[in-house]
């Protein structure tokens, strides 16, 4: 029992260490001259569940600045969101958040 407890404690310590070391990832959407603005907004609402106003604001940032960080968080979830955005053909990239 003691050995088991020690192993469990070690695993928990490892997990905490990995979690704290793992850098978050940004999901970035880039502007393109073809995709309709209303479509981009709709996709943000659909993929992230954002309110229409937040989705519209992000869409305008993409349009005016050429890109917008639309979500930041754990890599696995960032990849899932990027895949969903690309499934709707939004020009999407992923990048690690630098210190």
């Amino acid at each position, binding site marked *: 029992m003691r050995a088991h407890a020690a192993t469990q404690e070690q695993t928990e310590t490892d997990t905490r260490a990995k979690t704290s070391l793992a850098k978050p990832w940004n999901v970035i959407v880039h502007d393109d001259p*073809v995709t309709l603005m209303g479509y981009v907004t709709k996709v943000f609402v659909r993929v992230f569940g954002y309110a229409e106003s937040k989705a519209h604001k992000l869409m305008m940032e993409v349009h005016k600045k050429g890109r917008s960080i639309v979500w930041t968080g754990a890599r696995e979830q960032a990849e899932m969101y990027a*895949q969903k955005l*690309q499934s709707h053909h939004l020009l999407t*990239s992923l990048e690690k958040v630098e210190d």
Partner: protein
Amino acid sequence: MWVARVAEGYVFGELTAAAVETLRGVPMLIESTDERVRARLLPETCIEPEDEQHWREHAVPELERLFLSRATLVRRDLETLRKLPDSGLHALLITHEHTNAWLAALNAARLALYVLNDLTAEHMETEGFSGATQKQQEAIVRISLLAELQAVLLGEFEVGDDEASVEDLVDE
């Protein structure tokens, strides 16, 4: 082209031969193996090569399957295009259930036409049209037609509810 909203979805009527040809091109554009189309629909996503390789191995195959399944759905819907009596024009029903698939498919086709015809952001502006070649101008017209369908499906045009059925509309 006219649009009516019926219980099942949207009916697009009086589609010309050119419009029908453009719509029939949608699934083919999604399935295109042209490198320019693939680079746009399945773009480089990560900066680091090992991250990109991970992305190509884990995310891209599923996206490819999704695109092909969408192309099949659109092709099946296009098989239901109906010829309107007398005029020789056509009508197409896009059901509510298929709206999201169509929105994405239309977007993919527009992007594919853009890259296949070497268009630029300037070409897409009203003043840029005259500077485009004839082939590019034809592509821009097709891109605009597909955008009109997208805008309707997005609810950006006011389309009154029609109490008539699809059959009533196309058999008139």
